[in-house]
């Protein structure tokens, strides 16, 4: 049986993209798989009794070494902010390419804590900073120093000791450009070095908390239980900065979503599902319930989503156990069709992610296709005609063409870059100043403008000539030709309308990172948790691939 890929006009809607969950394709999981046989080492741990100083952690294989250089700093409570406007953080990190020399560490000590206003070199690959979750960190230090393990209830409410507030790579602030490293086999997957940084930062947080507790009370202090460590991840606060990324990298976005869609299609096409595979799938769903019940959020928007997810997953389990015959042919296709018919978007995408668990043979080759050589698709095929471009738009953007951009509600917002920190922001164009400096992220509106121009242009006119008089639409002409080849490259929704929920854009990207427990703090920023339940570095050589469904707190 041949199953069609799902329709981009359904999948690429923001509400659906904002319902995506981590899966075997997620970058943090593919990172662990790639680096599991690398040698992990803590090379330097030079902290004072209060936990301030430097540390270096590394992954090594043959002649290649990646080193995380950490700087833990003392800051005042009033200086601690997750916002990008902050200038000080509890700790700052960079991933160095190779073994850093003393001079490198000295250089980095001057630059890394400054983050955006510091300068890195081509020898550094990623850059980040993190703040303590004060209530959890202090609680853990207190308890460990008194010889006790911390309160698991408190830990489960937060899930981490530190949260990062930005992770930079690909040439930012002088970091190495992607082209310098893109041919390395081990990083043939998006954001792999960002994932490495976050993973090693997680280990640093455990080492630091143990270190401080020990010096607080050397006689009685105990170490944080490794089982508890394993159930703690690393948090992240994410704002709008992430949203334009998925608009600005259309072929990359396509390759992420297409990989997921191909995996689903192949799984639905399996005629006879093996018993062991089916059992693993059901086991993962059952065990994953803890991830839903421990998913805390104060956001009403998210609470409703979590509630309907839990109720639909329970409904699904009832269906599976009471009404579904697992040995039926094309079992996963039948399950998928039932989900589409009976459950919410959040649940559909949740189960779709878990369907991949038994099928490394399907997902592993797809992981290798999730990067993109974007420059290859940059040039506009200007020898094509107006008629051809119009047909592409009619076929690829049918719902976008239905939006009425005369209606104020449909263009109420605009995206801009703040002068302060050069970060993307969104505002109401009728209330705030600055819309004349709008960023080119209103793709739906501009595609519609382009379409209207094409309607009154001669069919046989070449795109080269069309652009003589329509230079202002060049950016969307380029996109339309990209979407012709890459069906999942475009968000099929209005990104400037009154009803936009920007965190849907963030959530899409974060789900591919492998984040859990999305916790919106407003419609424009959210907190997440990464690597919760993941093996510790000393367990990497032999770990349970389904760790994500086996957290205990």
């Amino acid at each position, binding site marked *: 049986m041949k199953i069609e890929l799902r329709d981009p006009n359904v999948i690429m809607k923001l509400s659906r993209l904002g319902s995506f969950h981590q899966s075997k394709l997620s970058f943090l999981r593919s990172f662990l798989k790639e680096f599991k046989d690398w040698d992990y080492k803590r090379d330097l741990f030079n902290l004072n009794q209060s936990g301030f100083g430097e540390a270096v952690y590394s992954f090594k294989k043959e002649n290649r070494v990646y080193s995380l250089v950490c700087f833990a700093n003392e800051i005042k409570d009033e200086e601690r902010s997750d916002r990008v406007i902050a200038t000080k953080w509890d700790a700052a990190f960079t991933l160095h390419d190779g073994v850093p020399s003393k001079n490198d560490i000295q250089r980095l000590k001057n630059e890394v804590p400054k983050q955006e206003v510091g300068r890195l*070199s*081509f020898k550094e690959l990623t850059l980040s900073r993190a703040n303590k979750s004060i209530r959890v960190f202090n609680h853990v230090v207190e308890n460990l120093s008194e010889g006790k393990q911390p309160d698991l209830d408190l830990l489960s409410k937060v899930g981490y000791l530190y949260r990062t507030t930005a992770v930079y790579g*690909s*040439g*930012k*602030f*002088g*970091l*190495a*450009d*992607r*082209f310098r490293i893109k041919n390395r086999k081990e990083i043939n997957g998006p954001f792999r070095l960002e994932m490495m940084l976050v993973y090693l930062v997680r280990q640093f947080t455990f080492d630091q908390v143990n270190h401080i507790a020990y010096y607080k009370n050397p006689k009685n202090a105990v170490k944080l239980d490794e089982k508890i460590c394993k159930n703690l991840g690393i948090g992240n606060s994410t704002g709008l900065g992430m949203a334009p990324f998925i608009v600005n990298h259309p072929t990359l976005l396509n390759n992420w979503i297409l990989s997921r869609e191909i995996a689903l299609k192949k799984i639905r096409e399996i005629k006879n599902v093996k018993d062991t595979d089916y059992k693993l799938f059901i086991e993962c769903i059952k065990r994953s319930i803890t991830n839903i019940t421990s998913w805390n959020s104060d956001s009403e928007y998210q609470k409703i989503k979590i509630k309907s997810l839990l109720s639909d997953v329970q409904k699904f389990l009832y269906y599976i156990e009471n009404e579904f015959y697992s040995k039926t042919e094309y079992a996963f296709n039948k399950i998928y069709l039932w989900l589409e018919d009976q459950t919410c978007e959040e649940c559909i995408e949740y189960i779709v992610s878990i369907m991949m668990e038994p099928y490394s043979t399907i997902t592993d080759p797809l992981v290798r296709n999730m990067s993109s050589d974007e*420059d290859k698709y*940059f*040039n*506009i095929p*200007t*020898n094509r005609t107006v008629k051809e471009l119009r047909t592409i738009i009619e076929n690829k953007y049918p719902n976008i063409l239905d939006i009425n951009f005369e209606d104020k509600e449909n263009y109420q917002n605009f995206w801009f*870059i703040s002068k302060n920190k050069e970060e993307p922001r969104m505002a109401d164009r009728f209330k705030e100043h600055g819309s004349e400096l709008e960023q*080119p992220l209103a793709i739906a509106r501009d595609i519609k403008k382009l379409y209207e121009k094409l309607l009154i242009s001669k069919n046989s006119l070449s*795109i*080269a*000539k069309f*652009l*003589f008089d329509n*230079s*202002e*639409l*060049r*950016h*969307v*002409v*380029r996109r339309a030709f990209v979407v012709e080849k890459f069906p999942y490259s475009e968000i099929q929704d209005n990104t400037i309308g009154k009803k936009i929920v920007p965190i849907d854009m963030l959530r899409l990207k974060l789900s591919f990172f492998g984040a859990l427990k999305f916790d919106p703090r407003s419609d424009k920023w959210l907190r997440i948790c990464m690597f919760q339940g993941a093996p510790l570095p000393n367990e990497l050589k032999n770990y349970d691939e389904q760790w994500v469904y086996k957290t205990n707190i």
Partner: protein
Amino acid sequence: MRSLSEIETTAKRASRAIGFSWGVSEEIAKSIRLLELFGLPGIKNINQYFEDKKVKKFENLNLITEKNLLSSDAFCPVTLGVSFLDQVRSLEKLKKIQFANVAYPIIFLSFLSRASEVIGKKIFITIDDNKILLNFNVSISSNFINEKFPKFGKNIEIEFIENQDNFTDYEWKNLYNLSENTFVEESDSLKQGAAGAGLTDND
């Protein structure tokens, strides 16, 4: 050192700020990144051009023909570059294309380099007395690469180089004969067995 990513992002934003559309700004950014990647002074020249653009008028040439003589002002290298890139598939039919007075020809050059990749042909460009060969956007070679690029190219001539070998048959055969010394002469038994198939397929 600034990364190429920083160069591209900043060049795009600056181009937009000076008045180019977002789409054209993306083209400029890509071209400046390319020049810097090749070790050519892209940032320096685009800066100077933007400064000049504030006080001087440059002519926008959209439709490129065989001979492009300016009416009054020098040609804008960006509009000229984007037009050339957009029209290169039809322009390659012309043997030679001439331009009179192009401002900041190095900026124009970056678009020509990209055009060379689009059509899969080398492009030879003469800017006054200086000669430059653009190799499929992989490299740029020139007899004045270390000298200061002129602010204006008074006479620019562009030639599309047909894809052909730049060595003689004799030179090729000589090299090929030498390479044959790595081959093994096939005996009858090797002919029979080494390919893993029989000599006839009359089945």
